[in-house]
């Protein structure tokens, strides 16, 4: 059964440590559906549009690198930064993007994102 983008976002945003969950167009980098911003990130300016566009762009470049290395399509991408992580999973024409706090259970986040992609297809 195909899951609606709103349901995917709602499910992922309830995973502990997920500050933002978004469904983003893979080709255009535009937000299809997004959660609100939770935790400390909510205090600053809203950067979801920037994050979505850049994460989708980065994922497309990582995919090219992966194919160039003959590894096939990347299944999960995680960018570790000083104050958290950006996780991306591709699903054909869309990518799931989450902004995750450093304290989050990344295994759980990864599992739930992969499950969301399976449910979508």
């Amino acid at each position, binding site marked *: 059964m195909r899951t609606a983008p709103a349901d995917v976002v709602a499910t992922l945003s309830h995973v502990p440590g997920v500050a933002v969950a978004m469904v*983003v167009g893979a*080709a*255009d980098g535009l937000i299809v559906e997004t959660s609100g911003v939770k935790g400390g990130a909510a205090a600053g300016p809203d950067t979801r*549009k920037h994050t979505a*566009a*850049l994460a*989708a*762009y980065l994922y497309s470049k990582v995919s090219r690198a992966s194919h160039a290395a003959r590894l096939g399509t990347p299944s999960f991408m995680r960018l570790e930064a000083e104050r958290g992580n950006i996780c991306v999973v591709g699903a054909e024409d869309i990518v799931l993007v989450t902004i995750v706090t450093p304290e989050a259970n990344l295994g759980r986040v990864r599992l739930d994102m992969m499950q969301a992609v399976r449910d979508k297809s």
Partner: protein
Amino acid sequence: MTDLSVVEPWVAGPLKNLAEDARLISGVLLYPSGRAVGQFGFSKAADVMSICALTSAINASSRELGRQLYGKPFYEMHHAGGDRQVFMARCMAGAHEFLFVGVFDRESSLGMVEIYFAEFQKALEQLQPDTEPVKPLPAGDFERELNRSLDSLFGPIG
């Protein structure tokens, strides 16, 4: 990217950043009247002349279309072609109004172009000189003004 050229030097920095950050193939910044302010990616004045005239006309048409359909003008347009895409938008720097048209391919995306265009607008806002904005021209002056700005970008023709 072909070298950038500008008529007004203060737009050079923001325009260069926009071209590089958004990975645009080519672009033209112009006044709504059709007068070119800066360009990158073009080597022929005739190409820029056509783009300025068309962009100016499309802007006028789309604004009116927006008014007719929704009661307010459209200020941003995007056309997704097979290989290349066109982004067209207006931006304000104080009282100065500009139009921008840019071309990109799969090395960029609409989302990328939109976020760097927003930064471009902010940069123009900060750098704008304290001068009077260019007033709309009488219809007969359009070609002369366009040629003058093209001469500034590419040098006099013939």
